[in-house]
């Protein structure tokens, strides 16, 4: 019996070694703005398009899009992604207000959940924006 038990133990340890303990983790890129001195200090900064998130009340979370000349609310994150996509300027057209490189700022309320902040981030990524960051929470 001894060799059999040895083999069984070895197989057991092998499977413990090879199993992935973490679930399939995915990531969003959240680069800090470049702090090089190549940027023109006199260049006008684009006012960011803000996604203002409220505190969740049951299944609802208030979502508002705010920027110069834009003030929209969305009932959920799917509609937020759609609204943001409509605001994005497509290459070769004059439709839309914001380039895909336009800064997007997620502004969650202090008591809002991290899940909602990430959902807001996800909506902006899905809408095709590339320059997205988190702001200080709104108190």
């Amino acid at each position, binding site marked *: 019996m001894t060799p059999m038990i040895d083999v069984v133990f070895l197989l057991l340890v092998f499977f413990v070694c090879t199993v992935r303990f973490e679930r399939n983790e995915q990531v*969003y890129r959240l680069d*800090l703005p470049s702090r090089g001195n190549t940027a023109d200090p006199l260049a006008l900064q684009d006012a960011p398009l803000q996604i203002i998130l409220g505190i969740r009340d049951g299944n609802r979370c208030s979502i508002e899009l705010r920027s110069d000349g834009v003030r929209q609310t969305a009932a959920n994150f799917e509609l937020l*992604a759609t609204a943001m996509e409509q605001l994005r300027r497509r290459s070769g057209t004059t439709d839309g207000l914001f380039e895909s490189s336009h800064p997007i700022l997620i502004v969650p309320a202090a008591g809002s959940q991290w899940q909602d902040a990430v959902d807001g981030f996800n909506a902006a990524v899905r809408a095709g924006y590339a320059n997205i960051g988190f702001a200080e929470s709104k108190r």
Partner: protein
Amino acid sequence: MSLLHARGPARIDANMTPLIDLAFLLIVFFILVARMGGEQLPFVSLPEPHNAATTSAGSQPRLAVNVLASGDHAILSLGAKKFPNDESGHRALADAIAQRIRRDPTLPVDVRADRSLRYDMIEPALRAIAQAASQVGAQRVTIRVCALDERQANHE
């Protein structure tokens, strides 16, 4: 000839089988320990956005800043090292991140935070990463937010 040595003088042979078994077990044990020590990723209930537009985390080394839920408050850790959730702890976390980035500026910094936490509990970790990046003066520090892709999670 003596009856005891009817087949010639007695020979002493070492039984190699248990030795090889033990050697294999030790090798596998050290592989296991090295893997766990290298990853240092505590279990975190990551956010699961609907229709996630995420990309794969890849298998390259990364610096994991974990924000774990513990009752009503959050625990900050860099890998397996925990930091107190106060001013001095946040400063120590920023210093530790800066030290690691200085050593390897290509290392992506991953924010692994529990989805049930409030945003203001995650903010110190985000602030510490931003502070570390400005301390190092790195031109581009890759910061990533970790989430689960619900489609892939459901397939597991």
